[in-house]
Structures are given as structure tokens and as C-alpha cells.
């Protein structure tokens, strides 16, 4: 069954930072992401390239599954159709995941 340990905004932020560590292993030194709320993940103003971004989201989804026991789909229609992307920065992403888990009754 689902474990709810650490499924708060701080726990989600830690999961995102751990995923940044994981994705940084595949990035050249000059493009490694910083572990901060302001870090841009995706978009015109920098961040990951498209396939790197796909990998990042997949890794984060799996981490949420492995660490919190929650099966979530991050790239759902709600997220993709938003005017301002919930994936653009670390802060927005952690807000979005927190909201998603709350909506699914796991927050």
C-alpha cells in the first residue's frame, strides 16, 4: 500500500533535487543544473533539452513511486494545457507535484 512518509512540499523538493543529481550525471559540466528553487528546468530561457527533459520527468515520476509508493502521471493533460508551464522551474514543479498529490488524495 501507499506510504505517505515525507509527502509534503519539502519531501517533494528533496525528490526533485535527487532527480537533478541523477540527470546531472548525464550532462556536461557547463550545463549541469543547480539544486535551487529558481533553477530553470525547461523553456526558452534555458534548462534541459527536450529529450533530457523527458528523461528528467520519467526519473522524477519513478522516484516519487519508489520513495513515496505513489503511482503518479506528471505529464497529464492538465499540466500540458496550462498557460504557464508547471515544469519551467524547480519551484513551479514542486508546487505542481504537491497539488497533484493533494488532488489524488495522497498529499
Amino acid at each position, binding site marked *: 500500500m501507499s506510504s505517505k512518509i515525507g509527502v509534503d512540499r519539502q519531501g517533494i523538493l528533496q525528490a526533485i533535487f535527487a532527480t537533478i543529481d541523477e540527470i546531472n550525471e548525464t550532462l556536461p559540466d557547463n550545463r549541469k543544473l543547480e539544486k535551487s528553487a529558481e533553477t530553470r528546468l525547461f523553456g526558452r530561457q534555458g534548462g534541459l533539452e527536450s*529529450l533530457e527533459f523527458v528523461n528528467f520527468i*520519467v526519473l522524477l515520476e519513478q522516484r516519487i*513511486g*519508489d520513495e513515496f509508493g505513489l*503511482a503518479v502521471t506528471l505529464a497529464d493533460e492538465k499540466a500540458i494545457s496550462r498557460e504557464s508551464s508547471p515544469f519551467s522551474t524547480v519551484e513551479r514543479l514542486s508546487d505542481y507535484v504537491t497539488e497533484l498529490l493533494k488532488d489524488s488524495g495522497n498529499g
Partner: protein
Amino acid sequence: MANPQIMIITGARKGIGRFLAEHYVQHGFDVVGCSRAPSDLQLPGYQHHRLDVTDELAVKQMFLDVSRKFGRVDVLINNAGIASMNHSQLTPLSTAQKLVNTNFLGTFLFCREAANLMQRNRSGRIVNFTTVATPLNLEGEAVYAATKAAVESLTRTLARELAEFNITVNAVGPTPVKTDLTRSVPQAKLDALIARQAIHRYGEFRDIQNVIDFFIQPESDFITAQVIFLGGV
């Protein structure tokens, strides 16, 4: 001794899926099967999940369980499928929707979730199921054949998208095999279909297993985006 490979088989309760589950357990795989109804298959190295392949949350939960138990998946066999023989003019929309949901969307969902898990180990094998009804454009199987045409297209595109993770994606296209899927087809139709094959006989489970063995063997890491039809179709 090397760790056993982890294989997921959809539609594993009966027919080809069950045969494959038994075969690969005997050959040292840890097999995770699924079907809508419970399975009576009890073998060490086999576990069963009850789910509908179109239920996204249930499928994700199954992959989460596999991830937590084994940490990976090596092979996905997308065997689950339903057929409906009907003239297109007499095919209810609800039947068409069920066929699309199970045959195409179910296959897509399992491919997506398996790829997400396989990506972590940067290796994996996905085998999808199509049918000779698609290249033969069989009358009376319009929607069924169309859903499998979609599976073939999906197979070829996923092969390109997932190649960078060393995941191969191929499909096998069986001829009629004596299973529940063909039980409702009139004998005359099956005979006519078999007459169009280069080799005029029913397929056997072992014919399908043989193609899957080829796709998943280590030496086949340069084989992807391929569809192999049985019987010379």
C-alpha cells in the same frame, strides 16, 4: 549465477499468454503476468496481477510493484488483445471502442510504463502483438485489423524513440492459432485465411514463442522496429 531476467506478460491467464508465462518461467525468468480475471497458474517465479490493461492507475501501480520488488523489467510481452469479427456496417461503436482501448491503448500504456522502467537500466526488449489480418486486409475484421495496424505503427516509432536507451521494440504477427480468439470465427473463414498463407496450417504457440525468443535473445540487440508475420504472410 546471474540474476533472473524480469518479464511482464499481459493477458497471461490463458491461451498464448499463459503458454508464454509457463515457458519463460521454465527458462529461468521471473514472470509477472496480468489479466482481468484471476489466474490459477501457480509456479515459483510467477506472480499475477488482476487488472484491466486500459486502467492507467492500476497499470502504473503494477509497474510500481515490479519496480519495488525487482528494481527493473527486462522484457515486456504485450499479448493482451480482443477480437471481434463483424462487418464494418454492423459494428457497434462501443465494440470498436473496446477494441481500440484494449488492443491499442493497452499496448501503448504498457510500452510507456515499461520504457520508463527500462530506461533506468538502459536496456530492454518490448514485443507487441499484431495479426496477419492487417496485411491481408481481411473482410469482417476491419476494426480489429486497424487496431493492430496502429500497434505496428506504434512499434516502429517507439523503436526509434527508445533506441537511445538500448530498448528494442518489435512485433510478432501470428496466423490463426486455436485459442478463444478464433473460436467464434466460422470454420470456412479460417480455412480461407489459412489458404492465403504460404504454409497452409494453423499456427502453434511454439511458433509465436520462437519469434519472441529471437527478439529477446542477447544477440538481437540490433533488431528493432521489425514486424515478423508467421506462415509466410
